[in-house]
């Protein structure tokens, strides 16, 4: 029972694969290979983030995090989050363990949410995005994403406190 509760998602995917492979073995094999290929491609970044988060967990002092991202960091903490969030590349979910480490060390919820939110900016991709959508679109979306990240961070902090 414990196995099912903790790994329902993996078991669900497994069952999906088994049942679909009875109907469409060829296409399921294709999907499997694609999934594995994406997985392998993501593995280095994921491994790095996990090891970085345990490293920070060991050596980053809570005092340091509290000073820059804690309750009394005020606007400074939010600005740090916005800057940090926009410059990091990679899939958002891969960073979750690291953000969780920040929170465990005393970072404000607003700061972590702003960090997650501004992740959508993806600065290194912007010139590429502009070739498809134009600079006007890109500039407007960057401004909107940053504003919303800060606003939703503050709102979530208030809601989670209750």
């Amino acid at each position: 029972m414990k196995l099912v509760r903790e790994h329902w998602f993996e078991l669900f995917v497994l069952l999906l694969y088994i049942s679909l492979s009875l109907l469409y073995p060829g296409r399921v094999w294709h999907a499997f290979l694609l999934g594995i290929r994406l997985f392998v491609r993501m593995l280095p970044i994921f491994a790095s983030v996990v090891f970085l988060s345990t490293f920070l967990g060991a050596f980053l002092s809570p005092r340091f995090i509290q000073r820059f991202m804690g309750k009394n960091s005020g606007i400074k903490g939010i600005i740090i989050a916005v800057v940090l969030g926009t410059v990091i590349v990679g899939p958002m979910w891969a960073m979750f363990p690291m953000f969780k480490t920040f929170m465990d060390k005393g970072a404000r919820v607003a700061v972590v949410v702003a960090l997650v939110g501004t992740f959508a900016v993806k600065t290194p991709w912007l010139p590429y995005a502009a070739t498809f959508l134009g600079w006007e679109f890109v500039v407007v979306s960057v401004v909107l994403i940053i504003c919303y990240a800060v606003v939703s961070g503050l709102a979530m902090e208030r809601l989670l406190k209750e």
Partner: protein
Amino acid sequence: MGLQMLGGLVYGVVVFCLYLYMFAKRRGETASAMKKGFVQFLKRIPMILAIFLLIGLFDVFVPKEVVASVVGSGKGILSVLLSVFMGAVMMGPVATSYPLGAMLLYKGAALSAVAAFLYSWVMLGVTVVPFEISVFGGRFALLRNVFAFIGAVVMGLLTSLVLTGGLF
């Protein structure tokens, strides 16, 4: 994709150097951090693997044209909401989202719908929600996703308002 691989490599090298530096100074703590990292990594692998296998299924069984037609054919707020759902279900590197967005615009989709689709692509991921819950806990994960959903809709509409003067 190339940038993502490069990003991973850079991360890896930076993390390795950090470990190396601290290993010289505080051997015991560094070793235990490394051990913890290894355990964490192994613990999370099954879920990550399952997520990517699910993405594989999605990519093979749901043709892009279907997604495009659903997002593109809607009218008014419905097309925006549908786009957000589509973006949340779609997975994959952002690099694919921009050309897809441009294609949708070219095919006559509303700007607000396309913008909402792009925001939702990066901010929401149906397949990674179980992972998010396992890291942050249910309350935080749920709230964050609700906020991301609202954000995608609102920002989609605002983008269109700023650029074209209309909502759809």
